């Protein structure tokens, strides 16, 4: 407090730095929601009102669960950081459009309460909440979680991946690349339109919310390996179909890039992408499931602390002294 009259109010005294970036957790998560918006719109267009209902149920439950957890811990509610909304929307994107509405409700509750809150809330969980919840739903209700429908007419069908992989259904023709790119194919709610996901992903790259390392390494690895490991020998695969089908775009751009459950250094994020790509291809081609994106990301989530331990930057001044 000054006595010289220039100032009659208390001054704030704190340790430097005294200025901060404008970016906040809320702003980053808000950007992720904006990045997910094109795919959400595509889901509504392709699968109609049932898509909107599933997304609403999933996001609503996630936010409610987050709020209740904060309350139970006698803490200020953390729904404002928008991370619960992101989890809810991502879970919805990973569900078949035909699921009954109680599936997203249970899924979001599991994601927030079991996978996130029990491990300490935002920043404490070691698995991607949406993906872990999807894995649990798949184990609990395998029929609901693998019943696919076609866009627009909503008739039951198989996904392109089921045709593409060696163990799949023979004789069903693959949709055109254009249909796969635009999303006019059966699949989970938010994963079918590569166009919408790429638009949102590019937005996140432009806003520097994510960097290129994980998505490029992930998609690139899948592309190269599926081409190499073709059905008729080395180099006979259909890499474009593999990249455009299943949850690859959604996983590479929005799930494997989740800050909390992925490595903290650029080199580590490269390893994350490579590992996810390798595991996805192994599961798709040699595993029991047609799709491997979710499990590959979950496995790499578990490997993240190890990657963080190994992929450390070379500190300044580590030079040989004369």
């Amino acid at each position, binding site marked *: *407090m*000054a*006595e*010289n009259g*220039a*100032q009659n*109010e208390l*001054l*704030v*005294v*704190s*340790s*430097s*730095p*005294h*200025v*901060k*970036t404008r*970016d*906040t*957790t809320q*702003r*980053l998560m808000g950007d992720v929601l904006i990045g997910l918006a094109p795919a959400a719109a595509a889901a509504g267009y392709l699968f109609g009102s049932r898509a909107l209902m599933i997304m609403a149920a999933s996001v609503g439950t996630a936010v409610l669960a987050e709020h209740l957890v904060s309350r139970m811990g006698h803490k200020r509610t953390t729904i404002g*950081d928008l991370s619960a909304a992101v989890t809810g929307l991502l879970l919805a994107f990973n569900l078949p459009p035909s699921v009954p509405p109680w599936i997203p409700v249970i899924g979001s509750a599991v994601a927030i309460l079991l996978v996130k809150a029990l491990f*300490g*809330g*935002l*920043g*404490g969980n070691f698995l991607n909440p949406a993906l872990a919840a999807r894995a649990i739903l798949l184990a609990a209700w395998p029929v609901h979680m693998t019943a696919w429908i076609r866009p627009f007419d909503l008739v039951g069908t198989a996904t392109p991946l089921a045709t593409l992989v060696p163990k799949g259904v023979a004789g069903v023709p693959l949709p055109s690349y254009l249909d796969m790119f635009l999303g006019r194919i059966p699949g989970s709610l938010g994963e079918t339109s590569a166009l919408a996901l790429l638009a949102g992903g590019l937005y996140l790259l432009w806003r520097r919310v994510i960097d290129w390392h994980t998505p490029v390494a992930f998609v690139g690895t899948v592309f190269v390996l599926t081409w190499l490991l073709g059905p008729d020998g080395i180099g006979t695969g259909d890499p474009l179909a593999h990249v455009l089908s299943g949850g690859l775009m959604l996983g590479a751009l929005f799930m494997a890039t989740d*800050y*909390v459950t*992925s*490595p*903290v*250094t*650029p080199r580590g*994020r490269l390893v994350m992408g490579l590992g996810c790509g390798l595991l996805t291809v192994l599961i798709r081609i040699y595993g029991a499931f047609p799709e491997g994106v979710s499990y590959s990301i979950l496995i790499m989530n578990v490997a993240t602390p190890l990657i963080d331990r190994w992929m*450390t*930057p*070379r*500190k*300044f*001044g*580590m*030079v040989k*002294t004369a």
Partner: protein
Amino acid sequence: MTAKTFPGGIHPDYGKGPTAGKPVVRAAPPKTVVIPLHQHTGAPCEALVKAGDEVKMGQKIGDTGAFVSAPVHASVSGKVLAVEPRPHPAFGVSLAVVIESDGQDQLDPEIRPAGSLDTLDAAALRKVIREAGIVGMGGAAFPTAVKVAPPPNKKIDTVALNGAECEPYLTADHRVMLEQADDVVFGLRALMKACGAGQGLIAIEDNKPDAIEVIHKALGGAPDLQIIHLHTKYPQGSEKHLLKACLNREVPSGGLPLDVGVVVNNVATAAAVARAVRNGTPLYERVLTVTGGAVANPQNMLVRVGTSFGDLIEQCGGFAKPAGKVINGGPMMGIAQSSLDVPVTKGTSGILCLARGEVARDEAEACLKCGRCIDACPMYLMPLWISAYAERGKHEEAERLNALDCIECGCCSYVCPARRPLVQAIRLAKGEITARRRRQAQPAK
């Protein structure tokens, strides 16, 4: 010439616009000055005067026999009112000599030119620099005479002048380069001679093209002097990063610039050296920037050491908006003050008055592990882990992650979207680690 830089760092809002184009104005002569006896890194001075003594401007009023130290001088002529503990803008409290000005500004008759650069040898130059009380004027205030006297096993080949001024808001060095270019170049020559260096360079960020042009002219095409354009980025003016950018020499961990054959000085320090050699003038006044959203009329000012912050803010029209924070230095590494009743010291490069709305007072949220602090860290450390260990009192773990290499630039805290006090926690850990090392070294004696 393409601008040079280093990987990492940040691009904050620079806020230099209000003062960059304003010539330095001389502050009104202070009626009373409070001159701390401790204005430098190292041992504090002992007072050479006592209450009631008459002193002249430029007279030495404090000194010590310690090697790492610099004497202090009166910045006005007049009567010593007291030698007593007073608030200090960097150290909290320090013993200070309080002088009431007689308004005459009578210069100490002892002050006379030291001689020409041709006749003075290295040892004589170092003595001139020490007696003039010159310290690093970029903020750290390390005694310059000590800097230019490296141990005999270290050979210095280059003197680098730091004109980066990467701290946002501050424009004092910018104005010194524009208005005292000849002094800066003369000071560089003197510093080169003092430490036996064959080449000199001046490094300036490319957001100051006018300073680059003026200094370029002042160098006059000398073959042993060069100007280096630096990319505008914080903390480009950190001496380690300056040398990495300019010379591609990397100061080893735990080392100093002299380990790679370089001595780094601030441009304002060089100008002060020039005045000490040419005129014998000790360091009792300096250029600083009074700025920030709260100040009515931000300015660059030539200020006597010992003038109170409050006085200078008044001379800049006072507060146009309520001040939230008053900082000694810049926003990234400056020290927040609890009172305006603190004096300008040799190391005060600016008085930054942030308006209440500009003051960040966010609550820390959970770490997202986004890794932005790692990308920003110019030392390539992992601030999120070091601070997490520090917060839990695990200082050995923090040390293992190289906490001691942290230069406390604050980039990590700046970029953190969760507003975590990263550098603040690391600072704490560094203190604990060095204290423990000192304790462990004790029993040996």
